[in-house]
């Protein structure tokens, strides 16, 4: 356990260090990359809760990532255009105030997850994978063909939204904000993992019958976990919208679901900081390979394959096992 704590600290600290060094060297884009890692890590931590602890392999988390993003995109574009969101039966105006945007993003993803989860959790295993995908695809196709907010073209937020006391347009400030959110999420996830709820969720993954016969409905436990998981991923989507100052249906696509899942598996399923490691490695590979060769995705594939074959339990599993023996 202590090795894992150290691993987590090194990862989180590393993220901060890279951003600060990049700031010192005026490598602004590196800060953007690290911010991206942090946001993907949050999305991954969200998924990891359902997938790692709960064994709920959701292939539809892009839905929540995208909904979080669109919540921000829609509200802030209304605010920027001075058009209220609705006037009847009561007036709802847009906003560019991040805390409110985040809250809305989290709520919207949570509500969507409640509805999607309530139906999806009737199934299990591969059926669950596919039914979550199905819901995400429905939302994706809806977003593509619904013209009000840009459809396939997406929706631009011309100016990054604001956070009191902070110049969010400054890359380092925005990173620090995201980083603070990441820390909070890691902390919450850690507590949750060790809590009674976490224990029960985990037990339900290993043997649902065990949990049922102890008088607990695995369905309810899983549904709650699914909703929390979606909320965290939705929050990440909200941050991602502000990072890019842009949202589009691509955030909702199945490729995005796949990528979030890849972060988790790459980093180590069920490990607290796994998604951070996974997202960092993925973004790094993408960035460096992308600059190296025309057929860089070929090498990205090889690299990922290498990790699966030779690092059991993802990066976290790989590193920690080594440590445990030494």
């Amino acid at each position, binding site marked *: 356990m202590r090795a894992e704590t150290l691993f987590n600290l090194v990862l989180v600290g590393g993220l901060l260090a890279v951003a600060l060094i990049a700031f010192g060297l005026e490598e602004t884009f590196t800060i953007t990359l690290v911010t991206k890692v942090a946001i993907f890590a949050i999305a991954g931590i969200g998924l990891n809760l359902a997938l790692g602890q709960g064994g709920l392999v959701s292939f539809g988390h892009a839905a929540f990532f995208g909904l979080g993003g669109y919540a921000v995109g829609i509200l802030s574009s209304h605010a920027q255009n001075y058009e209220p969101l609705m006037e009847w039966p009561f007036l709802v105006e847009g906003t560019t105030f991040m805390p409110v945007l985040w809250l809305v993003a989290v709520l919207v993803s949570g509500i969507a997850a409640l509805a999607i989860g309530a139906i999806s959790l009737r199934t299990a295993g591969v059926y669950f994978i596919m039914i979550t995908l199905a819901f995400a695809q429905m939302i994706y196709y809806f977003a593509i063909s619904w013209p009000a907010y840009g459809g396939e073209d997406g929706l631009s937020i011309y100016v990054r939204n604001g956070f009191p006391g902070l110049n969010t347009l400054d890359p380092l400030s925005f990173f620090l904000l995201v980083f603070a959110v990441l820390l909070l999420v890691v902390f919450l996830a850690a507590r949750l993992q060790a809590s*009674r709820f976490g*224990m029960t969720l985990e037990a339900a993954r290993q043997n649902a019958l065990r949990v049922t*016969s102890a008088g*607990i409905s695995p369905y309810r*436990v899983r549904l709650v976990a699914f909703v929390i998981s979606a909320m965290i991923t939705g929050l990440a989507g909200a941050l991602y919208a502000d990072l890019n100052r842009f949202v589009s249906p691509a955030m909702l696509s199945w490729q995005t679901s796949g990528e979030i899942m890849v972060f988790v598996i790459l980093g180590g399923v069920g490990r607290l900081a796994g998604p951070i490691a996974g997202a960092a490695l993925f973004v790094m590979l993408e960035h460096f390979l992308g600059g190296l060769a025309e057929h860089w995705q070929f090498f990205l594939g090889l690299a990922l394959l290498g990790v699966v074959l030779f690092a059991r339990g993802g990066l976290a599993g790989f590193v920690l096992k080594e440590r445990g023996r030494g």
Partner: protein
Amino acid sequence: MADPVLDLRQVTKSFGALVASDHVDLDLMPGEIHALIGPNGAGKSTLIKQIAGELRPSSGTIRFNGEDITAAPPARRATMGLARTFQVSALAPEFSALANVMVAVAPRAGGVFRFFGRALSDRALTEPAMAALQRVGLENRAEVPVSELSHGERRQLEIAIALAMKPKVFLMDEPMAGMGPDGSQRLTRLLADMKAEAPILLVEHDMDAVFALANRISVMVYGRVVATGTADDIRANPLVREAYLGGDDA
């Protein structure tokens, strides 16, 4: 006479053409061990599954302390006080023995929807769980993951879990299976203790244990309860001797 804790009336379950429970009447009185014996495939586990809620009877009613639970979901029955052990162990393999018991303690010690406190250092969970492990003699294996326990040890753990639930009824499906001779003897003593806490509906093929423990024995054949009585009645019943006990046993 006291009211039965568990009362089955005309419970019937069919799988296609096969009638696995055929109009079964069965009850369990406070303080007793009621053994259910019968040839393989007679329908004993199927009956236990219906009582626990894993299967829904095709017809008939099941009452628990007077309340009709025929349609209640399994988790609710467990909360009401039905604890069961499985014929094939159902445990969380990656968890330690202790954590497996803790999961069963949680619903009765404040519920599972607590998101912050550390479960492993929550004494409201660990203490009752440890106590239960002690009773089955697994206290030294508390921290061992279930996947590393031997078959027999898992059977013991199943019982510890049932104990930890402080139930009103124990449903036990072949608890002796896989226990070595010494284990069986110790378990027999344990069950004799347990019936003071709650009555036991015991499915078992180990006749030494059944005859030593049971206040009443019911014999099931082809889904039907064909005889109910004391150990001596049953031992003497020629039908049971032939269909179940066989030539020289017991």
